[in-house]
């Protein structure tokens, strides 16, 4: 059994969502996570707020700090969960249920977490 991180990439919800919509997403997200937990496959997760975010970037010789992860790309990491799965395919099935994917262009990236056991 491996652990996989499901990384959500989406736009800052501020401009797109009404409070009612956010409440709908809230329930969907909780039900989604609850469904994974009910299979004893949920390890943990967290949201990554967009506000007050910084990016430190190597620009030539200098380090430049900018506000927010935004720049060339519109979608950025909004959060992640870690799940247990037998395979990447199983983890992908979990990912497909993410409410994040209701937004066009949004993605959930599935990445195995290195075990550090000398094999991976």
């Amino acid at each position, binding site marked *: 059994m491996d652990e996989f991180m499901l990384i959500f990439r989406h736009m800052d919800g501020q401009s797109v969502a*009404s*409070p*009612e919509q*956010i409440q709908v997403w*809230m329930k969907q997200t909780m039900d989604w*996570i609850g469904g994974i937990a009910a299979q004893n496959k949920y390890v943990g*997760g967290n949201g990554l*707020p967009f*506000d007050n975010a910084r990016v430190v970037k190597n620009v030539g010789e200098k380090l430049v700090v900018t506000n927010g992860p935004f720049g060339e790309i519109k979608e950025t990491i909004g959060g992640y969960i870690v799940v247990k799965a037998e395979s990447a395919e199983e983890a992908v099935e979990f990912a497909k249920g993410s409410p994040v994917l209701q937004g066009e262009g949004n993605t959930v990236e599935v990445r195995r977490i290195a075990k550090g056991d000398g094999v991976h």
Partner: protein
Amino acid sequence: MEQQELIPHLFRTEFSRITAVLCQAFGIAHIEKAEDIAGETFLAALETWPYKGIPANPVAWLYTVAKNKAKNRILRDQLFAGKIASHIKRSANANEQFDIDLSEKNIADSQLQMLFAICHSSISKEAQIGLALRILCGFGIDEIAHAFLTNKETINKRLSRAREKLREEKVTIAFPGEAAISKRLSTVLTTLYLLFNEGYYSESHDAVIREELCLEAMRLVYLLTEYEYTRRPEVYALLALMCFHASRFPARKNEAGEIILYDEQDETLWNQELIGKGAFYLHEASTGLIVSKYHLEAQIAYWHTLKADTTEKWENILQLYNRLLQFEYSPIAALNRTYALARANGKQEAIAEAEKLKLENNHYYFVLLGELYSGTDDTKSKQCLQQALSLAHTPADRQTILKKIAGLNGGRAALP
């Protein structure tokens, strides 16, 4: 993880409460800032609650986050202002003194004060309704666009212009003084009346959104009855009117979402509790000497909650329309008055009166004439309905008229 359910519409309700308090605290020039901070508060919940569980007291959690976000924002703005205008001395503890008061009383006061600020004669009625939906009801731009059957860009533009105008006019967010309250209250009531109508008569097929517009309008009128300076007979009368109309919500649409006309509604579906409330508020409205147009409309609506056709009912409705038209002419009131005349005094008299109305580009006018002529002159009746059909804009209206024409062919007359 302890899961609990969130109260339906909790976010929308709390968005409106937080936004009103922040608008009040920041001033009219910063409505958008208040909306942003309130919006960020709910995103913060979305970023936290699914992983940590819903807090024991979700509302307290939201208020704490909103307060912190507001304070940080003020601090940031001050730092920013300090950078570009360093000669302006700012008191170091201004930020500490700045308190966001999210007590029940201050929330209610802020919402009422915002209601007065938004219903300002410098901006259009449409913009007033839009801003009220956004700030006082917590609707998103999408949802407002949906309700108005238009797109997001139009609504965004409309709201931006309105915010800008309120800023230019330096509208204060405060209760109007006693001297000004009657005039200001009248504007507020008109806006809430239109907000309700937007929901009640809207062509949007989304029944849920339509009902919610009506319920929000009722909630805001109710808010006015809770404050001593606005607890006035005309406010109760408007609330009564809305209750009577809303009582028919479950009966006025069939399963396909088509409008069922009053005469064909199943009155067992009418909400008796709302009718009772309406009667109570109408009683409360009858305390003073003032008779507003809302009193008249509420009484007309009251008579419509009695399905049985009695002479008394139609005679009362006729007299109420006679008075309403003296208050304020509207084509629809003139047509309804003529219909009541037909029911009270007979068709012949009504036909003579109807011919004087001259509302020749109004399809309801020809629907009425069609009704009046049916039974006595079916050819004329059909001509009128055909004329109505050519003037009707919406599929729902055309559908209704087509049904009437079909009914006519079957020899069925709607009026005695």
